[in-house]
């Protein structure tokens, strides 16, 4: 139940251009329901988990029950068949709490359930999707390798045919959920040089997923290596409809779409917190918010958040109309994550020393957003994608 806030300002996110009016009633209801869940169940435990460097896995069944895992997957396989704007709003609300918690949901939905639905066999879909939707099973997505991040096409992980089976060999790195996953989607190059996707149960012989520790970013999320030492999987574990690297990249388009929305949530969380702080905190006997420098800081942040909201709203409508291209997603991911990182850092300055503690959100969000800036296509790579789009010259490689 909502309780009255001691603050003079209502607990409401910035919505200066009434983007709310652009949403359907169901979309608003999805957002509000997810928001209440996040505020009541997730927000209170996030700072502790962040400090401890642990994922709040006790919440996984509740995530499943609410339908936050693979919401866009069709109802037939345990999803809710939501539209893209509703999916975006879910990411926004989860990331309002923490980018690491949102990463868990993004990976499960966009990087694991989406490829199984899009490229899997009927049998694979029927077996895995309902379990992944309830959270009974957790998945991860292994594309990045120690030496191949921005250019995954160079990957060294190999898949070799052996009778009816495949033998996988290689190493993946920076894999979200790796250690806690029941199944990994592993991308590997076959003997003909073609990139294939495999479902690898994490208890297969030769497979291990040690956790990568000592992170100062995304501490509420598990990040792991995947080590495959001659791991044998049957042909029935190969995703049959994969067509090379572009299939792997299409998963990323779906995840990046959610990230562009999520970044708005992180920025709003920081902004809302700092707006309240600016009215409560007295400096030279006046509220912090009454100083001119503070006001232009808030004006800039409020403007950038509003622009970011409109960008993803339009992107979502384009996605549902089937006219969104990956380049459109690049613009929103690049803009909004940079925006959110800048907002988080600026809010941190306004919070002064308080801003470096976990009692306030801005510092944690700023640390997290450093990862978000890098994963799912770095800021630079998305710049190159847009440069390519606008000039026709590809400037990625040599």
């Amino acid at each position, binding site marked *: *139940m909502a309780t009255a806030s001691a603050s003079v300002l209502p607990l409401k996110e910035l919505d200066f251009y009434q983007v709310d009016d652009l949403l359907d009633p169901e979309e608003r209801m999805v957002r509000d329901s997810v928001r209440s869940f996040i505020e009541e169940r997730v927000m209170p435990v996030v700072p502790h988990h962040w400090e401890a460097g642990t994922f709040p896995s006790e919440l996984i069944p509740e995530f499943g029950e609410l*339908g936050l895992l693979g919401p866009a997957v069709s109802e037939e396989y345990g999803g*809710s068949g939501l539209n893209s704007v509703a999916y975006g709003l879910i990411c926004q609300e989860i990331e309002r709490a923490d980018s690491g918690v949102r990463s868990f949901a993004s990976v499960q939905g966009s990087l694991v359930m989406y490829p199984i639905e899009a490229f899997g066999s009927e049998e694979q879909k029927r077996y895995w999707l309902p379990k992944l939707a309830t959270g009974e099973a957790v998945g991860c997505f292994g594309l990045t390798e120690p030496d191949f991040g921005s250019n995954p096409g160079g990957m060294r992980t190999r898949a070799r045919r052996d009778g009816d089976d495949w033998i996988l060999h290689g190493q993946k790195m920076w894999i979200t959920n790796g250690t806690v996953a029941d199944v990994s989607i592993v991308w590997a190059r076959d003997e003909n040089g073609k990139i294939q996707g495999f479902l690898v149960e994490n208890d297969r012989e030769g497979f291990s997923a040690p956790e990568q520790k000592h992170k100062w970013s995304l501490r509420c999320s598990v990040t792991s290596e995947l080590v495959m030492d001659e791991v044998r999987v049957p042909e029935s574990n190969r995703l049959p409809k994969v067509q090379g690297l572009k299939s792997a990249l299409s998963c990323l388009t779906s995840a990046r779409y959610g990230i562009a929305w999520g970044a708005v949530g992180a920025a709003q969380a920081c902004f809302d917190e700092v707006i309240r702080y600016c009215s409560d905190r007295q400096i030279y006997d006046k509220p912090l918010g009454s100083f001119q420098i503070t006001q232009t800081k808030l004006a800039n942040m409020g403007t950038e958040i509003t622009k970011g909201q409109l960008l993803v709203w339009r992107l979502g409508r384009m996605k549902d109309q089937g006219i969104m291209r990956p380049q459109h997603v690049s613009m929103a991911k690049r803009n909004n994550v940079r925006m959110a990182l800048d907002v988080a850092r600026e809010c941190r300055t306004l919070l002064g020393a308080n801003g470096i503690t976990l009692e306030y959100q801005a510092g944690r969000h700023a640390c997290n957003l450093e990862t978000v800036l890098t994963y799912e296509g770095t800021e630079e790579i998305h710049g190159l994608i847009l440069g390519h789009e606008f000039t026709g010259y590809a400037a990625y490689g040599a």
Partner: protein
Amino acid sequence: MKICVCVKRVPATTTRVVIGADKQLDPAGVEFELNPYDEFAVEQALQVKESGGEGSVTAISFGLADAKKELQKVLAMGADNAVLLTHNSAPHADGATTAKMLAEELRNTEAQLIFFGKQAVDRDQHGVGPAVATRLGIPCITEVVKFELQGNQVICEREIEGGRETVTAPLPCAITCQKGLNEPRFASLKGIMAAKKKPLEIKEVDLESAAVEVIDMSLPPERPAGRIIGEGPDAVPELIEALRNEAKVL
């Protein structure tokens, strides 16, 4: 079993109240939500239906047409259908009028159980549940914190000053729900999608003018600023004096 739950759309508890020219809450910029106590009522109604394995839950609200949003939330939580009794001056209705509207609708439903929140957090009148029960001639148990259905009777624990009492009543009966009764569920995404297809009937009702009329509304006086009495042990006697005679908390 046929179960009904009566719900109200109220300003969010985080609202900064502004009083309009008509001496009512100025709704501009106010967020509305399902009355928090009604969430316990909805949850209990759904639990009774689920544990019995059959039956239906109907949500009923009396209010402006906007209350459709709150009814849709109740449908998304799991109710089977909803009825919105609407009239333009519903916000001016007193508890007795509201109870009359609801009772007239409920009379035809043959509901065995009718759940209410113990109060609506906007006007805090606590009266609608008991008044509806009186009109229907059925028992009413208020401020329930524990609910159990045994055959044709209910056994409830309710909060009383300094303790709890356990009471029982035969079906059909009305229950008003207090915080602590249960943990209301969130509307799941599947529930929200399913709610779109559930029946929500809107009925225009005739309304007599309310017997009780609001003639004024005012905000609580501004809290006086804090005062520093002094520092260290020397200030303690004066502090105790102030706590005793000014704040009157000792």
